[in-house]
């Protein structure tokens, strides 16, 4: 079982993966941190001809990836990113994993150090359904997108789109692009101000560079 990377209970077509793939330049060197069963890496290799590597916490997922021919190592985003040299990848991707790390700030800093560009996606805790859930029921929100109860969720560091922007400011990241998505990974709220995206977006994808 992969405990690092919880997907929405509904299994949508991974439109968010297509969105990430679209952000990646062909032939780039890519590190996918928390690469799961290698779905995104496979997509990037097939569609973007990238030189792709992955890090994954779950050993069974790693073995699956390697059997598929992907270059993946077992490792922990919190602990193992320091081993990689600065600027060794064109893109460092952290897809739906940031909220499950012990030290999100450290991980984001490492991402920006290793990759010339970082791509980060995460579930948005500022979504209206979550706000409403907490307001009406007074309990930690359990939504289709975040189906676990507070005591068994791997997601220990939730944030909203606004919170994430603050962290980007703190670590000196420039937001090149930000996209709000619904639970199915489809872009929504295009052109709306960020405070609105923070309400209607169930997930967000950020393309970052180091200032």
């Amino acid at each position, binding site marked *: 079982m992969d405990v690092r990377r919880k997907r929405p209970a509904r299994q949508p077509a991974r439109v968010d993966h297509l969105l990430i793939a679209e952000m990646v330049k062909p032939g780039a060197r890519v590190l996918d941190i928390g690469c799961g069963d290698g779905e995104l890496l496979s997509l990037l290799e097939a569609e973007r001809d990238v030189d792709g590597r992955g890090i994954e916490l779950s*050993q069974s997922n790693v073995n699956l990836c390697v059997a598929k021919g992907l270059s993946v190592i077992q490792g922990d985003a919190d602990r193992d990113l320091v081993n990689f*040299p600065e600027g060794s990848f064109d893109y460092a991707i952290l897809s739906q994993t940031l909220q499950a790390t012990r030290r999100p700030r450290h991980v984001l800093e490492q991402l920006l150090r290793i990759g010339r560009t970082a791509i980060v996606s995460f579930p948005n805790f500022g979504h209206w359904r979550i706000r409403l859930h907490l307001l009406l029921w007074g309990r930690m929100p359990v939504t289709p997108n975040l189906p676990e109860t507070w005591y068994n969720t791997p997601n220990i560091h939730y944030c909203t789109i606004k919170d994430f922007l603050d962290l980007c400011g703190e670590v000196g990241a420039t937001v090149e692009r930000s996209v709000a998505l619904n639970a199915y990974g489809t872009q929504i709220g295009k052109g709306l101000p960020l405070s609105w995206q923070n309400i209607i977006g169930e997930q967000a994808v950020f393309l970052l560079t180091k200032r």
Partner: protein
Amino acid sequence: MPPATSAITTVTPPATALVAHFAEDEPLRLDSGALLAPFSIAYQTYGRLNAERSNAVLVCHALTGDQHVANVHPITAKPGWWETVVGPGKPVDTDRYFVICSNIIGGCMGSTGPSSANPRTGGAYGLDFPVITIRDMVRAQARLIERLGIPDLFCVIGGSMGGMQVLEWAASYKEKVFSAVPIATAARHSSQNIAFHEVGRQAVMADPDWRGGRYIAEGTAPRKGLAVARMAAHITYLSSKALHEKFGRKLQDREAVTFGFDADFQVESYLRYQGSAFVDRFDANSYLYITRAMDYFDLAADHGGVLANAFQGTRTRFCVVSFTSDWLYPTRESREIVRALNAIAANVSFVEIESDKGHDAFLLHEPELFGAISGFLGAAAARRGLPASCDLEPAGA
């Protein structure tokens, strides 16, 4: 071309080893400074070399292994030691790749070693054989590959001491290794590993029939000492759990203990059998030399104390494999290798396989190992532009 060319078109090799001879004027320069000449390398091949000579896989054998990786062994009549991995349709697919496995220098299955004739005396080398290292083994393999007319290797793969050779290949011949699969191994021998080897060597040398290493000249053989060495080593290849599940405290062909020192327990009987079967096929001095070579192995020390330096500039694709219950070459040793490769952003996969079987797992039926090897090799082959199957013209045809 040298006579070895005929081997390239061999599809199903005969049980007799092929041998490449290197004459007095083609010496092997050893780490110790000594020159070894003449010398011979015994080897087996499987499959066909393609016209581009780009599909060669070198399999490196472990301490007591040999070149008979996928054919019936000429002495023991047992299947090849890695028939689970090497063969038609197997993870190292001989329908697709041209597989070479050579007996290491210092060995006793046809390559020059301490039991070979010393040209200066006419008798066996014995302890006059120069001390060899893992790098010397790899140098000798590189000479063989050159002799076979193969410019570079698609893959170098091996477990245990074979894995050490894989790492040494990747460090010493970067441009000649497209992909590397070090399995159940380490970039250096630990103090514990050295300690176990020393027990084995002392057992051999304590046998009066060892005769200071001159047992061949004196017509004896340190069978008891070598058997004890093998027994002790064999324990290190198994996990405690595997031993317990296989034997527990079960008695051997008896209802009760005999209050003596016969093999009361099945595990004793098993070890005695392992020891005595081993001495029939292995030379005691070879055992001393090869264990020494493993003890001397420290890839980081050869590169300024930093393991990453050993691989600096590499373009090789790596797949590092370890097993959970292997306490001889535990996963942390493999992680050191992976960490070093990450430090230079090398292309590396790392698989730790859940197994109860201990160090020996790499030789046994481990489907996850097979999946990892075939997946990794398949992707590497695609990168190298190898065709999916082997409808190949043999090289030099």
